[in-house]
């Protein structure tokens, strides 16, 4: 099953697909443009992977002084950067390189501690698509990538749907693709992850308790390009859906 969380007519609803439209939990059928799409569930701890695809690692290798070897490169994000499907992400006026990152997002469904790889799929509630934007101008070498790069308001669209784990036969066998204004700029495959989903669940749960609603963003493949105001960015994963986002201009950082 796929579910969305949308605002419509003064309330927040759970919605399911109904052809090209949406069916609200109370039975009303509405156009998908008639609602405001929210992140599809309430997100707890937000864990993100850096450099988890071999090709992306190569793409960025010139600016790296360490690479992922034995341990995943991980950073944590706060919930404030999340927005839903069809939202707007703001590009700061002084940015020269802002890029999307299409990522398989894994939603935890059970309290999980010391879970082995073989049991990892049993703690997953489902999957969604995340677009983990980065503004490379702000990258510094202190607790890299710093939150100014990776935890900005509006810079982490997720959705459109929470897709039940049961509907995805093998999350390590999904094609990913990003288009900018309809042109394909990134295409990859989840089988190319350096650390796969069962590994990651064993790894994280070996030192921290994962809770229902926690979200793992599993990294992005090669093919990130600069995005300008007005660009429509569609990050899509096979079986999970297409997450649409539009870049908007943000005024300079001084108070209006």
């Amino acid at each position, binding site marked *: 099953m796929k579910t969305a969380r949308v605002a419509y007519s003064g309330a927040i609803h759970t919605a399911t697909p109904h052809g090209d439209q949406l069916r609200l939990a109370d039975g009303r059928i509405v156009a998908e443009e008639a609602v405001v799409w929210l992140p599809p*569930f*309430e997100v*707890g*701890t*937000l*864990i993100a992977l850096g450099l988890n695809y071999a090709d992306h690692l190569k793409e960025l290798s010139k600016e790296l*002084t*360490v690479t992922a070897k034995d*341990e995943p*490169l*991980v*950073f*944590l*994000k*706060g*919930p*404030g*950067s999340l927005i839903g499907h069809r939202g707007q992400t703001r590009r*700061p006026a002084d940015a020269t390189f802002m890029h999307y990152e299409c990522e398989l997002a894994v939603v935890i469904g*059970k*309290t*999980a*501690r*010391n*879970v*082995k790889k073989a*049991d990892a799929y049993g*703690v997953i509630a489902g999957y969604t698509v995340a677009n983990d934007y980065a503004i490379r101008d*702000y990258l*510094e*070498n*202190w*607790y*890299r990538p*710093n*939150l*100014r790069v990776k*935890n*900005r*308001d509006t810079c982490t669209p997720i959705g459109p749907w929470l897709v039940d784990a049961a509907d995805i036969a093998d999350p390590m066998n999904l094609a990913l693709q990003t288009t900018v204004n309809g042109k394909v700029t990134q295409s990859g495959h989840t089988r190319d992850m350096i650390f796969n989903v069962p590994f990651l669940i064993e790894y994280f*749960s070996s*030192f*921290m*308790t*994962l*809770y*229902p*609603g*926690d979200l793992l963003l599993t990294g992005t493949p090669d093919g990130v390009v600069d995005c300008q105001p007005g660009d429509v960015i569609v990050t899509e994963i096979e079986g999970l859906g297409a997450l649409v986002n539009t870049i908007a201009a943000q005024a300079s*950082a001084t*108070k209006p």
Partner: protein
Amino acid sequence: MIVPPFQLAFDHAPYRLSGVVYGTLLNHRPAQQALGAQMLQAPYKAAPKAPVLYVKPLNTLVLDGAAVTVPLDAPELEVGAALGIVIGRSACRLTPQDALDHVAGYTIVNDVSVPHDSCYRPSVRFKARDGFCPIGPAVVPRTSVAHPDALRMQVWIDGVLQQETRTGDRVRNVAQLLVDVTDFMTLQPGDVLMLGVSAGAPRVRAGQEVAIEIEGVGRLVNHFVAESCNPGAAA
């Protein structure tokens, strides 16, 4: 979806913490001075420009009086005493003039870490273990703390004073830190932003008691206990 059982309630707005806690690193001038010329060398290559921030996730949050587990693989932990700035009103792009109006009050945070030298790309294993962020015991209203940038902070281990610093001498004081953080991320009511740990953080081992005292804000006490050799069963 459920949220882990962490709740610090208090009797003024916004009445409870949201569970979102951000740490700030290298905000104490002596902490930057201790790094000295290293800051200009690889891998850092320059002093930090933006505030150096990190997240203490929900699994780390515990209250005053809770036992903190010392992991088997890290017998000695760093005690990061920090002033916790509790947000009272949605805070976005604040100015130095209005920043403090958005503060509900102050609390004490013990930002526990596995000691690590590198600030380049440290593993989340160092800061995100279960129970690694005691907070409390209360949120003292902003109006009761006249000078948040001049409070005495003490760390006591088993009753012996191990560190005494002040909330002053910061690269960014409370108001300026709020200005620079909310320039790019909105803080919500109940979120906690740490002013940043001081240089010379003491270390603690299993079997010891840590008390952090901040003048006018209170005293946060936690026992540190050894991890059992047979850690929790798989879910």
